[in-house]
């Protein structure tokens, strides 16, 4: 029963069903998500052949520990997002079910062309979802840039097929050492840019601002944590285990990633609206995650990815609630909004502090792993950049938190009466969900040995060689 194919097939089946039974769409979506999330915990590592043709000719689904983490995480996050914003699902249940199928396909597939198909399914669903804000200009932008990305990816795999005669990931990886860097340059680059559109790397992330900043409580976390998380998992899988390129290419991709990171954080520092801060911070963090994958620090990258998508889920949900209730998400006009919504505020604060890398939250554990990994690889420049960016990041997060918590102008002692008018941001159910997710952030940062066990299950991810921080390390001489 625990066949990973079901993760893709059941949502698709339910999507067809919800075309027929339109009224039950919302509930079918919930059933599909519950099924997927439950199944994700039961699938085991291994290979599933589809269609009876043995790979490399047939299509297969590959489940390793890395994919497993991705599948469990992404399905759970999507379930949480939908449960929180169930009232907003409306007629989007078909699209969401299709997206769910596409996302699981992207994570599971072991075939490059199959990946393209699933990516297209997901992205087309994403186009439709982005139209929810009725800002069609941004949707068109997304459509154009997204299509360019898809085409480039397709071109890339065609060239790769030409070179290796295969589209199966494991097969391509095995044949890759026979090729020279010059031969690989174009296909790898095309794939990098193509995936980069969804990962939100800097020169090709023009669509992000328009789409994210107008998205509502349902769509924003869906984009920022579910779809972005999936794209990053796929990126990791491709560039760590399928196309582990060397020298010049690595360096150039690393530069692009780091540029995304630095400029993303700087741009976030310049923003006035909560969602814009968050989306540029997402771009920046995505750049860092790709930099880590390219440098081979897989474990650190996965932890950072997890901490980031969890934080963004909470923060974008609450940011969506800002626009919903106050019709603005400019943090200066939301002065003291958490005075009336303390628990929502606490969840938001924990998520934000984790992003800023405050100790005992999972973001700090991620940062520690990154630093240890880079230093172990004798790389001193990137840690310096990361720590300098941590200052910038801390600065804009604290500025945001201060504005949201402490009402009053400069020179006035904070008082409740200065705060914006009282409105309930999230329902009680949603606040509790956000708090539970925030609790995961704390638990992940405190119980680090359990975090490591859950994520890696004792084996290195994708042949990861980098070190990780463990409890015994701090005890040093004992």
């Amino acid at each position: 029963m625990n066949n990973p194919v079901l993760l893709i097939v059941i949502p698709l089946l339910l999507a067809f069903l919800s075309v027929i039974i339109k009224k039950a769409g919302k509930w079918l979506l919930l059933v599909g998500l519950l099924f997927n999330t439950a199944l994700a915990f039961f699938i085991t590592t291994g290979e599933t052949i589809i269609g009876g043709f043995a790979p490399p000719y047939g299509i297969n689904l590959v489940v390793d520990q890395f994919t497993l983490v991705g599948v469990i995480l992404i399905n759970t996050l999507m379930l949480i997002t939908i449960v929180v914003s169930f009232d907003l699902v409306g007629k989007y249940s078909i699209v969401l079910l299709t997206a769910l199928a596409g996302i699981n396909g992207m994570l599971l597939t072991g075939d490059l062309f199959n990946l393209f198909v699933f990516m297209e399914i997901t992205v087309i669903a994403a186009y439709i979802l982005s139209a929810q804000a009725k800002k069609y200009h941004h949707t068109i932008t997304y459509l154009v840039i997204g299509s360019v990305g898809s085409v480039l990816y397709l071109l890339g795999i065609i060239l790769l097929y030409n070179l290796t005669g295969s589209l199966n990931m494991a097969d391509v990886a095995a044949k890759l050492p026979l090729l020279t860097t010059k031969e690989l340059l174009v296909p790898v680059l095309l794939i990098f840019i193509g995936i980069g559109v969804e990962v939100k790397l800097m020169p090709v992330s023009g669509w992000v601002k328009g789409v994210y900043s107008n998205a509502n409580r349902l769509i924003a976390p869906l984009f920022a944590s579910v779809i972005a998380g999936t794209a990053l998992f796929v990126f990791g899988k491709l560039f760590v285990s399928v196309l582990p390129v060397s020298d010049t290419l690595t360096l150039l991709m690393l530069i692009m990633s780091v540029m995304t990171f630095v400029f993303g954080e700087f741009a976030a520092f310049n923003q006035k609206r909560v969602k814009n801060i968050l989306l540029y911070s997402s771009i920046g963090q995505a750049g860092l995650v790709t930099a880590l994958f390219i440098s081979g620090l897989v474990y650190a990258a996965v932890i950072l990815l997890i901490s980031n998508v969890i934080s963004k889920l909470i923060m974008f949900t609450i940011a969506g609630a800002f626009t919903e209730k106050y019709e603005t998400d400019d943090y200066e006009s939301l002065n003291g909004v958490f005075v009336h919504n303390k628990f929502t505020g606490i969840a938001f604060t924990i998520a934000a502090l984790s992003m800023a890398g405050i100790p005992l939250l999972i973001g700090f554990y991620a940062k520690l792993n990154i630093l240890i990994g880079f230093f172990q690889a004798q790389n001193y420049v990137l840690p310096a950049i990361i720590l300098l960016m941590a200052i910038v990041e801390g600065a804009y997060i604290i500025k945001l938190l201060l504005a949201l918590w402490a009402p009053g102008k400069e020179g006035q002692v904070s008082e409740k009466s200065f705060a914006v008018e009282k409105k309930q941001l999230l329902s009680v159910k949603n606040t509790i969900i956000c708090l539970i997710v925030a609790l995961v952030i704390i638990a992940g940062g405190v119980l680090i040995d359990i975090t490591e066990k859950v994520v890696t299950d004792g084996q290195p991810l994708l042949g990861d060689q980098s070190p990780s921080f463990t409890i015994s390390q701090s005890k040093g001489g004992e």
Partner: protein
Amino acid sequence: MTLITVLITLLTLAAVTYLLSLVNSKLGAYFTIVTSLATIVMLFLIKDSIGQSYSLSFFTFKLTTVGWYFSMVMVTVYFTTAFLNPFWIKKMIYPAAYNLFFLVSLIGTIGMFFARDFITLFICWETVVWTSTFIIQMGKSRKSSYVYYVVSAIGSMVTLFAMMLVYQVSGTLEISTAFSALSGQPVLALIVFFTFILAGLSKIGIFPFHVWLPMAHGSAPHTFSPVLSGGLVKMGAFIAYLSVTAFAAYEVFANTFTIMGIPAPLYIIMVLGAISIVVGTVMAIRQDDAKKLLAYSSVANGGYILIGILLYDQIAFAGGMLHLISHALASATAFITIAIVAYRTGTTKMSELGGMIHRMPVTYTVYLIAIISMAGIPPMGGFVSKWLILQGLADRGLLFLAAAAFFGSIGSFMYVFRPLSAVFLGQLAPKYEKIKEANIMMQIPMYLLTIATLLVGVFPNVVLRVIADIQLEAGIQEIVLVGNTIVVSNGVLDALRVFIVFGYGFLIALVIFILRRKSRRVTLMDTYTSAEFIHTPELLHYSSNFYAPFERLTKKPYPVLNLYEKVSIKIKEIGHMAESLFSSSKPAITIFWIIIVFAIFFLGGVL
């Protein structure tokens, strides 16, 4: 009782305080007094087990004398300040959170002083930073809270870099052993030294990181300013201590270029300390807000502590460590008295006050004793510690540093005198005719701190014996103490004798005071305007433009905060540029960049 039990007990008490505060915030505020008192008791209980190590999950601790000493200083400040909490708690926007963060920051400092490995040190350090950031925002300025966090973050992130670098080189995170791997690598050692000490500099408020002190001290809730100035800045001194003991800067840099017999890197930091003394003193004199004035004086005093500790010898080190406690006591007292004045009058602006001695004689006396100590006048604690530091500097012939220290000592007369005369002396404004003296509860911390200041001043050897233990632990020559006398190479100091001499002087002055002709009281409005109506009596108040001639002398624009603002603006500009260049919503621009990226990749691939 182990340290772990202490910390867990304290965390439990903090949680209890929080829950109580949710029910009744005033009750919770009283509980902060109880908890900090419990901390003092428990610290005395664990004093016998100094030298032992403990661990809990990834936290490891080691009980050391120096950690114990720092913790005692810290908890004394917290305990005495906690007496003010019940009176302000109703004014806080988040009373329960205030009580919780107040205690958590205390626990964080204690954990930090006993930390055995870098991760514990860093975690406790950051805990203190963010809890205090959230407390400061409850005051009257969000910007100061922001600046405080950013300056702290600069320090802590750079220090984290140093910690990880050391870990990579030595393979251990244990503070005492990790640094030893650097001995053969001068360049690496240099990087680690400057990056490691940065957190300390930013916390203790050394130039150019001092910008946060006047902002944060000046606008934090009145009940937290004493803790910030008396307590939390001393965390920086602990980092300075680590950089000469665990890092062993004198040994590591023994073969490098020396200035006046001191390794150049250390001398550079000491010069920064000297600059802080001068800048802090000059700026303190110029302030109109009493809290900002005291904050700048903390900058200056931080310089003394830093220089004393970094000299790391028999005399000056003892002086630095003693100055730690005498400044903590004096500055906490001064901030508490100003807080009480603000509680009664609602302002800390000196030009709006005056004549408080008529209404608050106890507060006045307590403030007087505190500033005597702060200015380094005998017979208070500040005198002994400054005397030791100056002895140490003179001994080693460190002319420039000694000049700065002397300048600071003399300048401190000017700045501590200003609040004294502007707030407490002079004419009482009519609107303050009805105000009352501080109530008993508020007087308790004032008495406690005053007694402590006097004790340190009259019997400094009680504290110096602990400092001698620290010197023993650190492996340097201990300060020579004979009975009640401190023996240094240039002479001896018997603080008790000094006290007796000053006591005689005081008695003579008292006799003259009692016998003299009674002065006639003149009210503020009873001025010399010949019955003409005054629109702005404040401007005629003698404390407005108090040191006008001096201020004209030092009227140069003050560039450092501008530097931070400039950096911030530059970052925003780059962010804006990146946003419009690389993140444009026009697809055509995206395509353009894709082409550029391809071109670069091709060139890179060919080259």
